[in-house]
């Protein structure tokens, strides 16, 4: 036998190995069989391994050519094994699934639920953050001054009737009765913040308020608001409309229907009230919206010059707008809850829905 003949034989052997390996790989029906095939060819004493070792016995000038072929065969076998492995794994995973009833319900993690008020509140904070408003937090035990007087509501002003107040017991103190109250509105924070900071200001104040109010489906003696105010030079009424529109659509959906109306709060002029289409009845009229089809959601207005003066701003230089979102009401409107009292009811059958 002459050397060239031997080389050709070697090539045949390699191709033969490749063919039988591929056949066996593709015929293997499970991962175990595939592993055996792998050993048979690529293992320490596998057929391909031995064949490759034999290349060293070839004349030196023939070795690169055969060596290249051997590498190609090896690569093809390895790739085919990987492909087959993947195929078999999928097959086995499907088989395992077939062994169980996948339509049975999943096992729920034992985690709790975040209150709907919190979920909406965090959305509110987020939306305002996007337009540069920063959140603040202030006291619920408040003075008559910040709750009313600084807001252009002096003592004996008839507007106080619209916010019946809960007064705190001042016995055994030097405080005049009636001076310390539970705040009736988060607007009480306007004076506190403005006194301590200069414009420009973009602030929101989420918080709890208290009123002497008979409890029903749409009123509570404790309720949540998000106060907001914006003070700068050149603030326009159209900015107020634009901000309310932007915020409520972000919170309640782009299709939210709003309308504005004139109203009076002594600390704004012009005064604005915002009504949102009642989500409970879709304007048909229900007990929640007092049959009107609309729900009052966001009273607002341009900050009254008397308020700006009271906190030491020059009303000829600065102007601003303020608003208060009825947060409790916004929550009930978003989830179509027909009673505000559901929000303070700790029944897990309610909480688990959120």
């Amino acid at each position: 036998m002459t050397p060239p003949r031997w080389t050709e034989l070697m090539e045949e052997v390699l191709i033969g190995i490749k063919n039988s390996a591929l056949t066996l790989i593709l015929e293997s029906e499970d991962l175990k069989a595939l592993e055996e095939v792998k050993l048979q060819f690529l293992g320490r004493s596998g057929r391909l391994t031995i064949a490759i070792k034999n290349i060293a016995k070839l004349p030196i000038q023939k070795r690169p050519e055969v060596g290249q072929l051997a590498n190609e065969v090896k690569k093809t076998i390895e790739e085919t094994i990987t492909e087959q492995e993947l195929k078999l794994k999928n097959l086995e995973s499907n088989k395992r699934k077939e062994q169980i009833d996948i339509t049975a319900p999943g096992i729920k993690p034992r985690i709790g639920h975040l209150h709907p008020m919190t979920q909406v509140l965090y959305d509110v904070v987020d939306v305002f953050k996007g337009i540069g408003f920063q959140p603040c937090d202030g006291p619920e035990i408040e003075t008559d001054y910040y709750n009313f007087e600084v807001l252009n509501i002096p003592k004996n002003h008839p507007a106080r009737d619209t916010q019946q107040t809960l007064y705190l017991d001042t016995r055994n103190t030097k405080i005049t009765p009636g001076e310390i109250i539970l705040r009736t509105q988060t607007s009480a924070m306007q004076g506190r913040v403005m006194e301590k900071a200069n414009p420009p200001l973009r602030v929101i104040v989420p918080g709890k308020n208290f009123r002497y109010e008979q409890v029903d489906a749409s009123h509570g003696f404790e309720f949540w608001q998000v106060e907001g105010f914006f003070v700068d030079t050149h603030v326009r009424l159209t900015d107020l409309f634009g901000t309310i529109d932007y915020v409520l659509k972000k919170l309640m959906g782009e299709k939210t229907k709003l309308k504005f109306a004139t109203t009076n709060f002594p600390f704004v002029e012009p005064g604005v009230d915002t009504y949102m289409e009642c989500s409970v009845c879709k304007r048909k009229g229900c007990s929640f919206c007092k049959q009107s089809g609309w729900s009052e959601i966001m009273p607002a207005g341009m900050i009254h010059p008397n308020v700006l003066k009271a906190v030491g701003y020059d009303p000829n230089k600065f102007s601003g707008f303020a608003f208060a979102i009825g947060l409790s009401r916004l929550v009930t409107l978003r989830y179509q809850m027909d009673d505000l009292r559901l929000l303070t009811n700790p029944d897990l059958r309610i909480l688990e829905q959120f």
Partner: protein
Amino acid sequence: MKAPLSWLKKYVDITLSPKTLGERLTEVGLGTEKIIKEGDDTIFEFEITPNRPDLLSIIGIAREIAALEKTKIKLNEYTIPTPKKKSLSLKLKTDYALFYRWTGICIANIIIKPSPKWLEERLIKVGLRPINNIIDITNYVMFELGIPFHAFDYDQIKGAEMTVLEAKGGESFTTVDEKTYYLPKGAIIIKDKERIIDLAGIKGGLNSGITQNTKNIFLHATVDDPIHIRKTSQALALRSDASAIYERGVDKDGTLKALERAANLVLELTGGEIASEIYDLKTEDFKPWKITLPINKLSMILGIKIPEKEIIDILTYLNLSPKITKWIIEVTIPTYRNDLKIQEDIIEEIARLYGYNNFPKTMPIGEVPTKNPPYFKSYKLEERAKQFLVAGGFSEVYTYSLISEADLNSLGIDSINAIRVDNPVSREYEYLRPTIKSNLIKALYQNKANFNEINLFEIGKVYKGKTVDKAEEYYVLSGISNNKTFYEVKGLLGRMFADLGTDYDPTENIEIIEDGVFFEINFSASLEKMQNKKVFSPIPKYPSITEDVTIIVNQKVKIGDIIQEIKKQSPLIIDVSLLDQFEDSKTFHIIYQHKEKNLTDEEVAKIREKIIKSLKEKFGVKLKE
């Protein structure tokens, strides 16, 4: 305030349908609460804002409608005939600090009888009960023109004299509806020669009221000081249609015209005759006032330029007689619009009639503030804490800040140590909670019927202090569980605080209660400690060695102390935990690791010996065989 469409139509032509009219009125500030069809009439029910006393009258509402419809109202003028004989007279002693104006007249020889049907019907439609012609006329004119009236039985005014003064306080007074009140100091009263005959601005007196036998009357309209009326009305918890108008400020120039209207109705409906001059005691002539508004200010605040013609139209139909120059709008304010005082008020008038819903919407321009404002609160840490508790199986609740004395007592707290509300909505909600515990216990019980595993939490305020001058309020993180162990809760909270970047130890804040575990942590204070400054340490290059050591120890010895003692023995001990315990046998899981090299068994054995030696000396432990 109720207003029948038929009555409104007497003064203004209305083209809008009731529904559209209601919507438009709401838009311009006259909140339409109800529109009720009643026979062939329609009754509107309006919510009147505190700044608009003029809208507590049919004519005032008609004026608003006229402004919307761009038309003028129709109002008859009346004159009072000069008396043929001044048969009656009164001596009026006023106090201008109490009555800015006092307008009245005596009418003789009236016949008391029911009012005609048209008048009775109108009163019924606005929610009043017809009584007799004189009383009905006073009510009718008040509802028509917004000027409160009162009629006295002239013959009951002792000494034919009336004096206006402040009550000293404590005087007893019986009103026309036969209720007796003890008057607060400062109430405005009218006395005749002997007695109090009127609680001015609120209710007339029984002793001088109109009866079936009344022959002669004194009919008056007054302009009362709003603050006096409001204080008295609040002190007595007695409100009337008149006091509602006075509190907001009655039209000071309206009394004479209204008296002319009322007197004419009296003559027409009772057969009486004028028997005195017109009394009209006043501090000054109450005249319209002017406000000027720069046009550029108007457009700057509104954000749009409203065409000049439109501005003039709006102000004209609001009866504000505008004069406009290149730069300035000047308006003249009728006395019934005492809400219009400053430029911004006029801006609102123009904006509301232009229609808020016709404005474009813009986003604010200008610099976004970069510094945190005072009272800034980051919601991030709170949100993460809440998410953590939710992940730990707790559901969030919001409960009331106000609780009852019984709630306090159930926790062994004396109500003297809690802040009290003077005028609670009910005894159930009288005190500010110094803890959320009672609320959470109640919440747990409420859920027992439907759930076995109940885990609830709240982050909310508590209010501490005995008296309001020492009150302190802060947020607590409070929770309750009926199925988690003390250690599970401790572990959860510990991990939460670690994640939030503080080494706060919640052990002392967790209580074992009858129904499970309760915890309450001063969240405001622990927030301040949250640094959120975590420093990464590289993954160890060398493996750790772990071993379990079981000891026998007196059960009084605290596990925390043993762990501390073990840790103290070598810096190579990186973690110690309790793996298992049964009675006095406890197994600790100890991990040793060196940052720079592999630890040898010999090195670990040395540390272990040291541990055991110190535990023996300190706590007298024995090694378990």
